[in-house]
């Protein structure tokens, strides 16, 4: 089968499944699940097949296939419904469909008791369609379209239990925060189109490569605006507030959307459109005080700040899913930072490995929650290792990968990021600190929830989840372990390094297994060593605090108000509430007041009333008295005579 056809199948099958479930099989639960899982499975197989005909793992330099239909053609604006197949998208396809398949399977068990089982799978399929659309999009408008669709499917899934006020609020918040990012994204797209006359990635890339100043004074602004899309979708500071709340959704959703795939879309977009950010700094006159700051600088720092803030917040959370959510935030910050440091390959590599182990961690957390009847507070757990053996070992694998312990996949990808940051000492220090913090809070999570003795009666009654939930855990654990060796890094370097302008470094796949195993120590020894040291330090710290299975968190006592600030997420939610209230809500209140009292009241009703009163006054002339009439007529006539003749 031709690769274009395969790509269309991969994209459209989930949509067909979503439509079929919504329209036809809403009442047949098993059929709905089968449709949805089947769509992803076929997608996964097709993605694998694509590598054969296309060669994701042995890519040829810079080639891509395009399958497109003209979607819109108005005047100078043409937009294709285009699928761009290259190694990057192919890799993402495999990751999205692969992880997606695991999570779909897992959901069959996790959601088994839910009344809206079919709706869940319909939403999942819709999400898969949108996500694959982002991956395959060949131009900015298409990407924006699927960007928004991903947003809405995320909205639907976060608010899946819409009868719960907290879920409904979280869904709303997620959508609106994303919209803020999309606002900048869309403006950025329009800006780029306005300057270059096209929205197609390849064409923009060609133009910008031949003339990096083609965007003129708007270059950096355009980049930053487009980056706003990432800030929303990948929950970067300051738009990070929605992601922790999004944990109100079912846990498979958290794993799929809010850990592995959707939130990674922002990073993917940065990598996909890297040519747009990697431009010399240029600002319009009105923003000349920013001169010299390039888009990548801004991206790197936003990523770094997000990574640090989120890691700090994670330290003091007690909800198992929230800890993972902040961890996700922090890791996303890492990826963005890597791209900001002009190493999109490192960011993307971490994206893939992170997808494996973060999905694993979330599914593991889901398994715990499932076993504990929806208890999510880690301080009511403890001693789970004994009750849930499979969940525990897979969770530990995920944790190790996340902490960056060799030879787990996270080590390699995180190392790439640390190496990328080496050129910027401040960011590098920050990244090392975050690496330490990551280990600290993950170790804390493990010690409190899994080690020690049960703190709650639920734990004692807990049973391991059914096989349909455990198998995905096992597979993902394998992927988390092996993710570093599959040559993903090499592929990404081949695809993205030229775009980053650094030439193919060539390390990674060269040499044998041990060479690969130890590669990080070879090409960036400082980063690898410091990273390992931070990991070890973080673990030691967590061990000293939590290994004794305390009943309460000892940290607040030591850190005082800082711990409170961490726990309360540095009061961003409250700050934003106030901000929205004094700006947008105030504007709405003023507009409403003006509308009610000035426009509808004074202007409209006032005119009506005024005319009415005029009429009532004027008709007092009609006294009914004959002589008044005669007098008025005569006086009027005299008036006319006087005016006309004198």
């Amino acid at each position: 089968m031709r690769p274009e056809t395969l790509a269309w199948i991969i994209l459209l099958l989930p949509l067909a499944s979503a439509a079929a479930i919504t329209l036809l099989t809403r009442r047949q639960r098993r059929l709905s699940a089968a449709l949805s899982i089947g769509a992803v499975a076929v997608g996964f197989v097709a993605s694998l097949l694509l590598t054969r005909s296309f060669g994701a793992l042995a890519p040829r330099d810079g080639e891509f296939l395009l399958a497109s239909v003209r979607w819109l053609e108005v005047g100078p604006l043409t937009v294709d419904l285009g699928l761009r197949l290259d190694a990057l998208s192919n890799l993402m396809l495999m990751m999205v469909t692969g992880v997606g398949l695991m999570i779909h399977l897992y959901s069959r068990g996790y959601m088994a008791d839910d009344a809206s089982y079919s709706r869940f799978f319909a939403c999942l399929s819709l999400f898969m369609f949108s996500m694959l659309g982002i991956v395959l999009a060949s131009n900015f408008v298409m990407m924006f379209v699927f960007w928004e669709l991903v947003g809405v499917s995320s909205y639907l899934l976060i608010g899946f239990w819409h009868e719960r006020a907290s879920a409904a609020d979280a869904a709303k918040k997620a959508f609106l925060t994303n919209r803020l990012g999309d606002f900048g994204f869309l403006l950025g797209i329009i800006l780029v189109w306005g300057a270059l006359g096209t929205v197609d990635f390849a064409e923009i890339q060609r133009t910008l490569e031949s003339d990096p100043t083609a965007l003129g004074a708007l270059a950096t602004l355009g980049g930053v605006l487009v980056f706003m899309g990432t800030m929303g979708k990948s929950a970067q500071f300051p738009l990070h507030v929605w992601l922790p709340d999004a944990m109100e959704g079912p846990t498979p959703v958290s794993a799929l959307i809010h850990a592995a795939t959707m939130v990674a879309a922002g990073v993917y977009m940065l990598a996909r459109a890297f040519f747009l950010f990697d431009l010399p700094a240029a600002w319009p006159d009105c923003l000349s005080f920013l001169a010299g700051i390039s888009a990548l600088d801004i991206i790197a720092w936003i990523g770094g700040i997000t990574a640090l803030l989120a890691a700090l917040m994670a330290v003091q959370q007690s909800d198992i899913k929230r800890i993972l959510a902040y961890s996700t935030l922090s890791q996303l910050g890492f990826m963005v930072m890597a791209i900001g440091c002009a190493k999109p390959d490192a960011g993307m590599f971490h994206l893939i490995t992170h997808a494996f182990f973060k999905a694993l961690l979330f599914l593991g957390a889901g398994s715990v929650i499932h076993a504990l009847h929806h208890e999510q507070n880690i301080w009511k757990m403890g001693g789970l290792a004994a009750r849930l053996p499979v969940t525990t070992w897979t969770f530990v694998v995920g944790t190790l990968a996340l902490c960056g312990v060799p030879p787990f996949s996270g080590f390699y990808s995180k190392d790439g990021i640390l190496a990328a940051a080496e050129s910027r000492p401040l960011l590098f220090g920050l990244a090392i600190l975050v690496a330490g913090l990551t280990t600290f809070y993950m170790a804390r999570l493990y010690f409190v929830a899994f080690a020690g003795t049960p703190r709650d009666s639920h734990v004692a009654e807990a049973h391991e989840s059914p096989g349909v939930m455990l198998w995905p855990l096992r597979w993902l654990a394998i992927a988390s372990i092996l993710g570093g060796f599959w040559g993903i890094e090499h592929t990404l370097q081949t695809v993205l390094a030229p775009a980053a302008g650094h030439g193919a470094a060539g390390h990674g796949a060269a040499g044998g297994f041990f060479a690969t195993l130890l590669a990080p120590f070879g090409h960036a020894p400082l980063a690898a060593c410091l990273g390992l040291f931070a990991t070890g330090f973080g673990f030691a710290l967590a061990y000293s605090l939590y290994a004794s299975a305390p009943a309460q968190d000892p940290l607040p006592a030591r850190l005082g108000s800082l711990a409170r600030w961490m726990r309360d997420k540095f009061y961003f939610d409250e700050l934003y509430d106030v901000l929205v209230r004094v700006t947008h809500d105030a504007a709405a209140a003023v507009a409403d007041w003006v509308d009610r009292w000035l426009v509808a009241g004074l202007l409209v009703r006032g005119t009506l009333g005024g005319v009415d009163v005029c009429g009532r006054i004027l008709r007092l002339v009609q006294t009914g008295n004959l002589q008044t009439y005669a007098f008025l007529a005569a006086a009027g006539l005299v008036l006319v005579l006087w005016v006309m003749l004198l």
Partner: protein
Amino acid sequence: MNASLLGPELVIVGLGLALLLLDLMVPPERRRWLGCVAAATVFALCTYFIAQSGRTGEVQTAFGGMYVLDGLAVYFKALFLLAGGVVLLLAVDWTDHAGHAVTEYFVLILFALAGMMLCASAHDFATLYVSLELVTVTFYVLTSYQRDHVASLEAGVKYLILGALSSAFLVYGIALCYGAAGTMSFTELASQSPALAGSKLFQLGMLLVLGGLAFKVALFPFQVWAPDVYEGSPAPTTAFLAVGSKAAGLVLMVRLFGSVLPDLTLKWEPLLMVISGVSILYGSLCAIPQRSLKRLMGYSSIANGGLLMMGLAAASKAGSAAILFYLAGYLFTVVCAFVVASVVVQRLGTDDLTALAGLHRRSPMLAASLTLSMVSLAGVPPLAGFFGKFVLIRALVEQGASFPGWYVLIAVALAGVVISFSYYFRVIKAIYWSGETAEAPPLVLSPLVQAALVLCLAGMLALGILPSFVWEAAVAAVAGLRL
């Protein structure tokens, strides 16, 4: 000398006299047939004139130029006859219920009709005065016809005194004009038109004449009588007053200002604009709080007078043609409203808007007729009123190209029309969705009323949907004007 031109007027007068004689012989219960005969004759004459209107062109005069039969006269005569015919139908039904001596009422209508027809042909101040007085004096009686109703008497007296006052102004104006021009013949006045436009004495006289005519059309400053008289008079009288009397005043104005004294018209454009603007606003504003249907129509009549006057103020053939067309539509519309008002007053004893509640259930036809009539008055397509307003606005905008001050008048007219929507549509509201009276019995309409309504509705719709025929006739009728 071509006295045969007067044939139609003579037929009408003769018919009136014959009816008076027949009245002595016909038993009271059969007298309504006399009205029907009168209406039939009038309609027949009307058809004759409509057929005639195609053959305008040559202008025929009689009595040494005191009487003229041209396109304008033919058009208006057809209009008067049509109005007279429908009003006669209505009168028959009304007298059926009022229980008065009937024949005199028909005869008076016929005499007033004859007076109006003479107005259309008046071509000399003497004919003007006499024909106008024939109308006025007859209406004194027609308004106060219900002698046992104080309201009717009061309306009669008011109309009498104010009408006489306006006649006095008119006559004094005629005297001064005569003094200034040395002639009363319109033909001779027309030949001196440029010179007369500069004469103060003549202007004074013409202003007084204008005042006298303004009374007929219910224009500022002679507009105050209309609501009182409309309210107090019997419905058929009011209908005839609103259409016939107004049209009689207008035809004289069009003739005087359009054909005889065009120079004066151009000079007085601002005055005419002010008169129409003030009338529109006065009528529209005062009507807003109005609760009585007939009185409402009185104020509406003032506003419509102002609208018609705009066409004259435009001092163009398009404007005059617009007046003619508007009047034709206005005829059907207003008569329709008064047919309904007449039935409502007879059956329900009041014309207060609250009495209309549930009318749509009691008589869908009455309700629909009154609704369409109000809608047409407001000027909504596809009814006659819309096209009338359309051609009026067109005439005004045409002038606006040369002098932007016209847009002020246009704005005033628009304001007036918008205000008028509020009271016309309140009538509709009263019919369709205010305080339902559940047990109200249905109102059965007599065939005559039905015929009158059908005629009016057909006219309203025809003039709105297929305005071409009447519009071409109106354009042809004003072809002879010197504007």
